[in-house]
């Protein structure tokens, strides 16, 4: 063993010890008062998993109970569990982890490709737009090694689905989703499309449990956000009176990202914030060594990854935001501003309420929100600490908040896959169903992000599609997931159809009164003598023995129908 190897081993040991220590410290701070609220440990485990995972089944509940609820949560907060199965599945979508510069080069916009082809003389100007142009375009792109943007979006959505279904770090995935939606950007705005994968991977995901200010700063400096809300083009007003100021980002920064709409700022504050952030833009991707950029450097530019501060376009005058003055500090003004916003009481309240709405109830108790906001202020915006305060609070375990949240379409689909240990074979198809149920992920056009309350997700059209999703999912039709219908039955023949039904619902809806559900499902069991037929077919299937032959088609169809009813049932829509 060479010395380097030894050092490495020692280091890993130390790191792992440190990790264990941190985990133990965290776990020591956790004490869930569910018993005081009259919950059994099992009920508490179900509530915990319903709030902090994308879905679960009876085995997950059992495992969590054995592990200890506090320890489970501590590990989720650490979010460091590795999983080689997940890594292997993500391998097919590895472009999403590329840098913005790489993606910009690999997935050029169609208009850039056309321009390039014309410049290179491959196409004449007249050939642009003629019939067959898409074939020409494809040919030229292939010759250059370019890929189409659609492929990048498909990879991104696929990686999202795969992570949600398989990641052992469920809370990190949920929080990534939460913060992405909070700091929403959208594929519907072409200017920021290329930069969205990196936005999620490098800006959001690493910061979901850390200091709020870090997250805020990272989003403020990301190309996706700079283009989405136009700050990239906002410059100081020029002497000839032409306005260069764009207030779009400034307004959302106050209203949606920090203080909230009633956060006590004025229109004047909005304008002043926009002035402070003039010059905050994106480093040119195409020609990094262009003359103009060299000049900008001489004028005092600052770079941070893809972010560029252009001193030449920054407003040097005095600005006042929430009574605090900013004057001629260039780049640092922006950082000071973000720090100022992140430590406001209004921000603490706004963020805490939004977290409580996401993880507890559509209308969370103000007592709970106040506790969280206080923790937010005490820790200068430490997100993990705010979550700990939330889950340690009695209000979190209140019986009245359980099963009150409605699953979003994405949550419904992923929870179905997770509870049945489905095998995702076509994540794009899977996501198409999510869109059909009303959640076109990453395409929400407004900077507010998707609303987070039940009535938004439940309407006549979407509800029928939820039922249809259940039926299609169970039949392995068009949802891109394959499942083993006999697995929840422990691969054993059920005594009857009713027995099968009971096993499914106990497995997928642990701690729900399944007797009631079964009663409601009785009508189906009498349809066309289903019970007798299924019982017979299950016996045949079980007699077949080997796992490979278990997929008896008739049995599948009828079991699937029952399973589809469970997934489409009101009980399964709730979280």
């Amino acid at each position, binding site marked *: 063993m060479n010395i380097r190897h030894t050092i490495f081993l020692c280091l890993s040991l130390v790191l792992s010890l440190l990790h264990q220590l941190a985990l133990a410290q965290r776990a020591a701070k956790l004490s869930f008062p569910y018993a005081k609220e009259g919950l059994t440990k099992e009920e508490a485990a179900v509530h915990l998993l319903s709030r902090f995972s994308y879905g679960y089944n009876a085995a997950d509940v059992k495992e969590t109970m054995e592990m200890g609820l506090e320890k489970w949560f501590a590990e989720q907060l650490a979010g460091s569990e590795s999983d080689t199965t997940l890594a292997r599945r993500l391998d097919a979508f590895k472009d999403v982890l590329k840098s913005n510069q790489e993606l910009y080069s690999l997935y050029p916009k169609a*208009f850039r490709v*056309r321009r390039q082809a*014309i410049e290179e003389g491959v196409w004449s*100007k*007249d050939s*642009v*737009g*003629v019939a067959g142009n898409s074939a020409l375009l494809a040919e030229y792109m292939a010759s250059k090694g370019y890929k189409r943007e659609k492929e990048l979006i498909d990879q991104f959505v696929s990686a999202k689905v795969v992570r949600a279904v398989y990641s052992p770090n469920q809370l990190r995935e949920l929080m990534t989703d939460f913060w992405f939606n909070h700091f929403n950007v959208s594929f*519907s*705005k*072409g*200017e920021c499309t290329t930069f969205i994968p990196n936005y999620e991977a490098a800006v959001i995901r690493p910061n979901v449990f850390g200091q709020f200010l870090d997250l805020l700063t990272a989003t403020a400096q990301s190309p996706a956000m700079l283009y989405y*809300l*136009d700050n990239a083009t906002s410059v100081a007003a020029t002497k000839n009176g032409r306005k260069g100021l764009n207030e*779009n980002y400034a*307004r*959302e920064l106050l*209203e949606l990202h920090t203080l909230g709409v009633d956060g006590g700022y004025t229109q004047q504050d909005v304008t002043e914030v926009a002035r402070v952030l003039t010059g905050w833009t994106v480093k040119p991707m195409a020609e990094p060594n262009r003359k103009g950029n060299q000049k900008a450097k001489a004028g005092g530019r600052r770079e941070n990854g893809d972010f560029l501060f252009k001193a030449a376009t920054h407003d040097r005058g005095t600005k006042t935001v929430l009574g605090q003055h900013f004057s001629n500090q260039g780049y640092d003004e922006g950082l000071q501003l973000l720090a100022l916003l992140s430590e406001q009481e209004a921000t603490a309240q706004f963020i805490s309420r939004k977290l409580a709405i996401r993880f507890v109830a559509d209308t969370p108790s103000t007592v709970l929100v106040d506790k969280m906001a206080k923790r937010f202020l005490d820790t200068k915006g430490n997100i993990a600490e705010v979550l700990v305060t939330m889950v340690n609070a009695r209000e979190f375990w209140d019986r009245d908040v359980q099963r009150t949240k*409605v699953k979003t379409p994405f949550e419904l689909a992923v929870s179905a896959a997770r509870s049945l240990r489905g095998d995702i074979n076509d994540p794009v198809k899977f996501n198409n169903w999510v*869109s*059909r149920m*009303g959640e*076109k992920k990453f*395409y929400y*056009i*407004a*900077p*507010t992000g998707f*609303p987070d309350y*039940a*009535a938004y997700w*439940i*309407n*006549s*059209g979407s*509800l*029928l599609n939820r*039922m*249809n999703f259940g*039926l*299609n999912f169970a039949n392995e039709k068009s949802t891109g997931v394959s499942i083993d219908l006999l697995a929840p039955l422990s691969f054993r023949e059920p005594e009857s159809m009713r027995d099968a039904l009971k096993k499914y619902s106990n497995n997928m809806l642990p701690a729900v009164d399944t007797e009631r*559900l079964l009663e*409601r*499902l009785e*009508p*189906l069991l009498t*349809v*066309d003598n*289903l019970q007798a037929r299924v019982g017979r077919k299950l016996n045949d299937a079980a007699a077949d023995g080997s796992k490979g032959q278990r997929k008896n088609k008739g049995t599948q*169809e*009828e079991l699937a*129908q029952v399973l*589809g*009813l469970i997934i*489409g*049932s*009101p*009980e399964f*829509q*709730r979280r």
Partner: protein
Amino acid sequence: MVTRRAFLKSSGIGLFGVGLLGGIPSFLADVVAEHKRASLYSKRKVLVCIFQRGAMDGLMAVTPFDDKYLQAARPDLYVGPSLVQGKGASIDLDGRFSLHSSLSPLERLFREERLAIVHGIGSPNTTRSHFDAQDYMESGTPFEKNTTSGWLNRAVGLLGHEAITPFSAVSMTPSLPRSFYGQNNALAIQDLKNFKVQERASLRGTAKSFEELYEETSSSLLRETSKESFEAMKLLQSDVVKNYTPAKNVRYPVSNLGKSLKQVAQLIKLDVGLEVAFTESNGWDTHYNQGGPNGSFARNAEDLAQSIASFWEDMDGYQDEVVLMTMTEFGRTVHQNGTKGTDHGRASCNFILGNYVDGGKVYGDVPVLATENLEDGRDLPVTTDFRAVFAGVAHDHLQLQDADKLFPGYTGDRFALWKK
């Protein structure tokens, strides 16, 4: 949140008209009967909106044809009533403006004075980003990004009565458009026939099982919504809906827009309570080889005009209740660009069709296209705020109460387009 329990209250005529009574639950039939008389005298008004995404070249659709500056700026694109002879010549509407030949199906409606055109329409916000301009036009607040609702959703809320059916606001699109975001119930449906629980022939009873499960759930939101869903589903699954054929001799184009408008017509005739319908026409972003009498613009224009004309013909007998309006996020540059197309500009034009519309006129203010008259020296200037036109249509056709709430922050006039 508007209460949504009162399904089919006023759709009595439609139900009786198409003989659906046997197919619906008896309590519903009672409700229908009760409201039948009232409905007879208060036919529902319907507004049908088509968003032309990508920004239509208004100067090519409706051309100020004797403008020398325009002819000079567009050597490859300009088409006038006399410059291109025979097939492809544009149609002289009023001695100043001509209609692109591909829009010829609209000519008759214009001559019959039911079709009005507003030229120079656009947004006071000067953004030339598709995304922003569409967002602003659909939210109806051109300087306010985070308006959570769309203007058509607000319009539904201002109608002065509860949402009566799930079909009050329907978008024939795969997902809800920005215009329909908001507190009031709105549906996105691509295909009426697929508005159902996908039951297998061998296992009938699934829909019934779902219905019963939801009837007894403790969540009132799930319970009430599912009730609406199943009622709507039963209606749409009737043979009358499945075997729908348009009025005789009406043939819709086999395009997304044609299919959508056909289904809108179907919903209107069924009298299921439709009040605002929305659909889209795509492909107006003509940066390259826009073409003249033929080409990419012409193909889109033809689809638009034929779809609208077919719809209107299909609406025979219902036209008094219906107004159709087009919209597009902005217009295009006066000058053609280096690839025989046009880039993002400012003002465009739109079409408003209805029996009570004071049509046969090109409204608005289009100056001579000399550089000094153009916005930023390059674009047809916006002389009419889109909100003025939208608010006028909503007020005069839908007779909105509190119409001033439709466009928060807008203090301008309403455009008057209705016959006196």
